[in-house]
């Protein structure tokens, strides 16, 4: 019912193009995360659904109804802002009730629904307080309450957790996810945090900043696993995953090689980059077939080590889960990739190449 569609949408501010040729459909009841570095237009894309920005070209449809020319108040969407954006002069109850009051609902219904929202978000004891008397997490819960109280078709989240400290962010993330179980509305969630994107979204849409020379805004959309396992281009490959994917240039010759190791595959024509995620590399003793190198730095994260290895192809990062032996810096090693988990990209276009 509340399917959201971008049809060839473009947006520019004062001649500066921020979004171009955006085609994207968010299914009814789906939770899609827009992710990308700053300036990639992900928030602008969201704000265009809310009607806070007007598309420069193309059409945005909600529930197969064009939104062109409709004011934000006529779109039945709810939005949660990064800065909370609470009404400072109203109590918590007043804030949550505001959308219903604007919709002209009867007082008794407003009271019931405010209470319902407050119960869901554990805001009961704070209903008479003002935003200034609340902590950051409580304020963002009020903002959530103000959104859910209206039972809207569409929920928009614009980096709602970015202002919270790390602990609170994790618990609010869980809170939003459990909210999502209760309310089957279409949700779009904007973030620059890939952990949020990977853990929350049914699907993730990765945006690239046009100012950095990318030709289109939407680089890839898919489930978190699809994006992680089969990034469609270098931008997505680099953006998702921490530590980042290792990229190694493939040198001429018709066989695909990794150092001294033959990867049993034909090398594609043209300049190519071979991508291997840090967890798909393993440390071998020096002399074993693979890419030779020397350990420069070992970062211990408790559960795992990030081992930085200096090779002739540059520095690669290996994620070592085996904690029985701590790698030592200065040690000579050989790196071996998991052949099932290799990614090939054309160097100039950045597009993913098929394995042959």
């Amino acid at each position, binding site marked *: 019912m509340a399917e959201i569609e971008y049809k060839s949408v473009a947006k520019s501010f004062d001649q500066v193009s921020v979004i171009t040729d955006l085609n994207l459909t968010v299914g009814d009841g789906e939770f899609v995360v827009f992710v990308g570095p700053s300036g990639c237009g992900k928030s602008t894309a969201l704000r265009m659904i809310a009607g806070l920005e007007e598309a420069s070209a193309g059409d945005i449809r909600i529930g197969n109804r064009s939104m062109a020319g409709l004011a934000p108040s006529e779109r039945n969407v709810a939005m949660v*802002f990064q*800065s909370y954006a609470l*009404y400072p002069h109203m109590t918590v109850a007043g804030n949550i009730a505001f959308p219903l009051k*604007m919709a002209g609902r009867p007082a008794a219904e407003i009271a019931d629904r405010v209470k319902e929202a407050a119960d869901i978000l554990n805001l009961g004891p704070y209903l008479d307080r003002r935003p200034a008397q609340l902590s950051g997490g409580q304020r963002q819960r009020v903002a959530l309450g103000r959104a859910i109280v209206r039972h809207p078709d569409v929920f928009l989240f614009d980096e709602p957790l970015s202002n919270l400290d790390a602990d609170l962010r994790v618990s609010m993330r869980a809170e939003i996810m459990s909210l999502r179980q209760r309310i089957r509305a279409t949700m779009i969630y904007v973030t620059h945090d890939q952990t949020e994107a990977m853990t929350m979204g049914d699907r993730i849409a990765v945006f690239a900043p046009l100012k950095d020379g990318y030709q289109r805004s939407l680089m890839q959309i898919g489930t978190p696993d699809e994006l992680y396992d089969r990034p469609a281009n270098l931008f997505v490959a680099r953006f998702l995953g921490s530590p980042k994917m290792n990229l190694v240039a493939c040198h001429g010759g018709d066989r695909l090689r990794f150092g001294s190791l033959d990867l049993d595959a034909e090398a594609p024509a043209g300049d190519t980059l071979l991508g291997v995620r840090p967890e798909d590399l393993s440390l071998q003793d020096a002399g074993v077939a693979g890419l030779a190198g020397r350990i420069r730095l070992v970062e211990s994260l408790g559960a795992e080590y990030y081992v930085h290895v200096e090779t002739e192809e540059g520095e690669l990062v290996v994620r070592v889960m085996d904690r029985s032996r701590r790698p030592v810096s200065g040690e000579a090693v050989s790196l071996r990739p998991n052949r099932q988990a290799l990614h090939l990209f054309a160097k100039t276009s950045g597009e993913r190449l098929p394995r042959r």
Partner: protein
Amino acid sequence: MSKRLVNLARWLVFALAVLVLNFPVIATAITSLKSEAEITTNASLIIEAPTLANYAAVFAMADRFDILHFLTNSLVASLIGSALAIALAFPAAYAMARFNVGRAWLLPLVVNLRAVPLIIFAIPIYLMYQQVGLLDTRFGLALILALVNVPLVLVLLASSIADLPIEIEEAGRVDGAGTLRLLAYVVAPMSLNVVAASSVLAFIYSWNEFLFGLIMTTNKATPVSVGASFFFAASGGGVRWGVAAAVMILATLPPLVIGLVMYRQIGRSMTAGAVKG
């Protein structure tokens, strides 16, 4: 111990500053409490025989110059004049701050209008007022006061609205408020402190306005700024300084009281807690 000394020194400096800056006011207040005889013989700030005789004399002249009538005229005209200015300027300021309506030319134009000597408007307005019967009416005076106040109020409101966090208004729009309801329920409550500050300023300007009070009124709507001057030569001969001082003090009280009452409102931040600061 030394902290108390510092405090003491601080208060001495305050007291001195207050004394110097307010000396004319203090001198007037003291003069109003001296008898006519004492004013000529004792110029010091110490009153030998305090008396309310000058105030009594002011009210005794009510048959010729009614101070309460002048005060009422000023109060009504100034209240309407400043309220009207706010009512006119608030939506305009919002349009300028958020929709950029006329921000480039209308705002500078209106503000520069304030720099033009007001006497230029006197004759056309007088002739117009004559036609429509607004001469010597409180409402007529209030209309002019509102126009005199609009530039200042507009600048204050436009800049303060531009400084409000825009996300709150965006939230209001998404929550279903159109522009008018957004103004009434969200922007206006958040602007209360600036509205209060500009009301006080507008009221004070209105209260002190002399030129139009002099030209546009003859008797029924004479404001206290003009009316007070009548008392200076009330007794025919020379100026009765005691009476003049008493009139001046009476004329100063209402704006003083309003300023004090509104002061707390002005200093308050209206947006605390609204957005991550």
